[in-house]
């Protein structure tokens, strides 16, 4: 188990037992279904991120700063081990305003990989209160 006081060095491999957070669009488009399941598209690599997936270590995260806009984003959590078991590497990559930041190397946009991540992830409540799970429509 990861120690609650465990600190990482730059580019150090994250422990398998760490929970990581990923933001997912809540609405238009929604990546969270009415029942709380998560779309595989929430883990898709984007061109602007140069093939790296951006996440946060849960226990080091300042939720208000990470979410930015609770109407726009929901939060999902996923165990680091899922990435490592599927050939990716989660490395510590702190930013000046985000000491919890992690980058996933050697991931891909392979659909089986993306779906495996989505099936292993869970929607979580925002600590300041619960997210509504229903999709908001106009």
């Amino acid at each position, binding site marked *: 188990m990861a120690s609650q006081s465990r600190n990482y060095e730059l580019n150090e491999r994250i422990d398998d037992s760490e929970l990581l957070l990923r933001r997912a669009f809540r609405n238009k488009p929604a990546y969270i279904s009415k029942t709380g399941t998560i779309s595989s598209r929430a883990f898709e690599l984007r061109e602007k991120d140069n093939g790296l997936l951006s996440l946060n270590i849960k226990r080091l995260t300042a939720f208000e700063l990470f979410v930015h806009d609770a109407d726009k984003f929901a939060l999902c959590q996923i165990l680091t081990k899922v990435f490592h078991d599927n050939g990716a590497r989660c490395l510590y990559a702190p930013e000046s305003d985000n000491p919890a930041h992690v980058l996933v190397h050697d991931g891909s*946009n392979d659909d089986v990989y993306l779906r495996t991540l989505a099936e292993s992830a869970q929607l979580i409540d925002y600590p300041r209160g619960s997210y509504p799970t229903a999709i908001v429509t106009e």
Partner: protein
Amino acid sequence: MVFLPQVDFASSASSLTKPVPVFNFSPIASARVMKVGDFADLKKTANREIQAQIWDFAKLRAGWDDGSAKQIGKREIDLALDILKDFDACGIEVHFAAPGVNGEISIELRNASRLLEILVYPHETSFLRFQNKNFISKGMFKLVEIASHIDWLHSSEAQENGITE
């Protein structure tokens, strides 16, 4: 006593005479011309919601993810709607649909233990099968093979209920 006129909609010559439900979202006039009866075509309320979501994908412009996401093409939207209508015609509810940054549309169908994901890309349409969160199989998706996908989804329900063939 008030007598209401009896109207036989089923035998009407034109679909324009059929009642069309009114919904609280706007048609995407600039991206797609809605046809009378588009909503009325779908049996399942849940599928009508998915239909509205897919139409909304047409409103997404390039960079909709605050990055470099591609616009979802009309071909992909039309094909996703065709897939939705075919499942609906078989009485099957689609669980969810979402757009991807590479211009694709993900369509999910679920039961308690099984998941079928159909991915409509600009260059191909494929499917994935998962059971109890584990990958089972994948392949190219064809509308004519929709019955085999429904059989696969339903066969697990039969097994879970102790029904054997």
